[in-house]
């Protein structure tokens, strides 16, 4: 219908050429203005959203000397709709006196929950058969290292750990 019109703008500074470039520029600008917040929004979790924090696990007295017990805490960074998944479990080994070891339940191999067997003093993983000694050291199976350990502190008779992220080989607890 407009065969006699130039669909491709000429190099001259005609109005058509200007409009074409303006149209292009406006859309690129729009794309960038949408793209930056979209990328920032999608990539935001990488910035850790508050990251790790100190978490109270409970009174030292609830972890008897020489025993290893499961403790559960609420993750420090949560949203209201997390439900039960806001919880994280960890294994607390009270070595002696003020000496503790707090292990992530996640196997160092691929993250499955390891279980503690007090009789043989071993942690066993149900997924691929990783086994750890009571001090968290790798005993057998595919894990490339021992269990992930939390930093801990005792403040006024309470056991605190520093945690808040899924432990993996790239970023232990």
């Amino acid at each position: 219908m407009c065969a006699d019109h130039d669909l491709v703008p000429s190099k001259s500074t005609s109005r058509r050429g200007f409009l074409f470039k303006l149209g292009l520029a406006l859309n690129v600008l729009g794309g960038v203005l949408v793209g930056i917040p979209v990328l920032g929004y999608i990539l935001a979790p990488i910035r850790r959203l508050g990251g790790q924090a100190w978490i109270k696990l409970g009174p030292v007295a609830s972890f008897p000397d020489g025993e290893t017990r499961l403790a559960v805490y609420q993750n420090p960074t949560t949203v209201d709709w997390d439900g039960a998944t806001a919880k994280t479990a960890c294994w607390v080994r009270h070595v002696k006196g003020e000496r503790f070891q707090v292990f992530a339940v996640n196997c160092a191999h691929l993250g499955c929950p390891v279980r503690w067997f007090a009789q043989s003093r071993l942690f066993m993983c149900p997924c691929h058969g990783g086994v750890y000694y009571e001090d968290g050291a790798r005993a057998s199976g595919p894990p490339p290292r021992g269990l992930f350990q939390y930093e801990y502190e005792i403040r006024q008779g309470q056991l605190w750990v520093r945690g808040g992220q899924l432990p993996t080989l790239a970023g232990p607890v």
Partner: protein
Amino acid sequence: MAWLPFIGRWLEERAGLNAALTPVLDHPVPRRSASWWYTFGSATLALFVLQIATGICLALVYVPSADKAYDSLLYLNYEAPFGWFLRAAHFWGSNAMVAVMTLHMIQVFLWGAHKYPREMTWVVGVLLFLCTLGMAFSGQIMRWDQDAYWGLGIGASIAARTPFIGESVVPFILGGPIIAGRTLSRVFTAHVFLIPGILIALVGLHLWLVLRLGVNEWPMPGRLVDRETYRQRYEDDVHKDGVPFFPDAARKDMVSMGLAILLVLFCAAIFGPFGPHGVPDPSIIDTAPKPDFYFLALFALFALLPPWTETVLLVFGPPLAIVLLLAVPFLAGTGEKSWKRRPVAVLGVILIVLTVTTLAGLGVVVPWSPVMSAWSALPTPVAYVKGRTPLELQGALIIQNKQCRNCHSLGGEGGRRGPALDGVATRQTRDQLIRQVLQGSGNMPAYGKNLTPAEVTALVAFMQTLRPDNQPPARPSVAPAASAR
């Protein structure tokens, strides 16, 4: 009914669908290609449409929120009218889609359909296959039960092994530092918007390419594909000895599509929906997560790979496999099409199918996993306690109490991580048994710190009784020194 043609004409004048679709339906297909073997693709498409239909229905009820998703699945199973059936159809449909799509892929490969000029059809097909696996994985996560929670943990742990960016990839996938509410929202978005959008676009492209390049002819041994002559020859053949796609070829496609859907609906009605299994509560750790069947082979591979190869294979294996799949038509894009003259291709398919099914079979049995309840739940075989001394009986107790049976079976029951203990006395001497128990080796932890000397004595005394009556106990290979006699 005189108004029907009128409506038809009215629509045609405006939409022109008839004019647009007639050439599509009439396009000529090589006569022999109107075969049952060529119907896997349309069956996959039918299953995809079924997935869309049932998926939309499920989305009407499913709540993509970590605190409510599980309850909404139970509501679908037990309260929503036909909810159980639609969930079941979506589950069986997804299984069938992966399975039929795999058959389609194997068929087009063996029939040489990926060769010139259909390379791009193959490439798009591989992308469709990957998207479908993405749908399968994300769908499995949306079941938001224990398997989903820990399965995602496995996924994140694999992603974490990526060099340099591993630390960033994990929170990117999870939408936060842990698996929780924001994770489910991400997976939901991928499963419901992102991947289906890509899938629909790619299906369109795939079909367009099939129409544009024509359905692959029936390969004849000795009839080679040559870039110079192929297209002209195909055009000549298809016009000389072709049939219109509709209805000549479409008949079989339609039957196969209908059968695929009916089979899924049948499985849905008989077997019902799958899960959700345990509540996704991370503090409940008595769980043994397992993926759906299409990932069982990978799951098994993770247990069986030598640890030192693991990171390399986990991180670079899948991308390499994808690149190889995409490269197939560029590595062998011309020449012989018939599988009868492509022994490497046939052996390759057999090798891959055997590997995947063997691994998946092992993934069902999980012989590498300790049986967590074996020590407290399994009885000691009567034959092994009959007529034993108190010391030996004490050893039998220790075998149970120290969880030995989680990894070692007795009388065929127990773990299979380590060797069965029946007959162990014929293989190891007393000293060897003691050393093995105390120091461990290979895949066995050392029990030196966890057993008292008295316990070791009892344990080994019991193990020395574990041999058939007609077989002598193991003897040291070196005769004891004269003084010890």
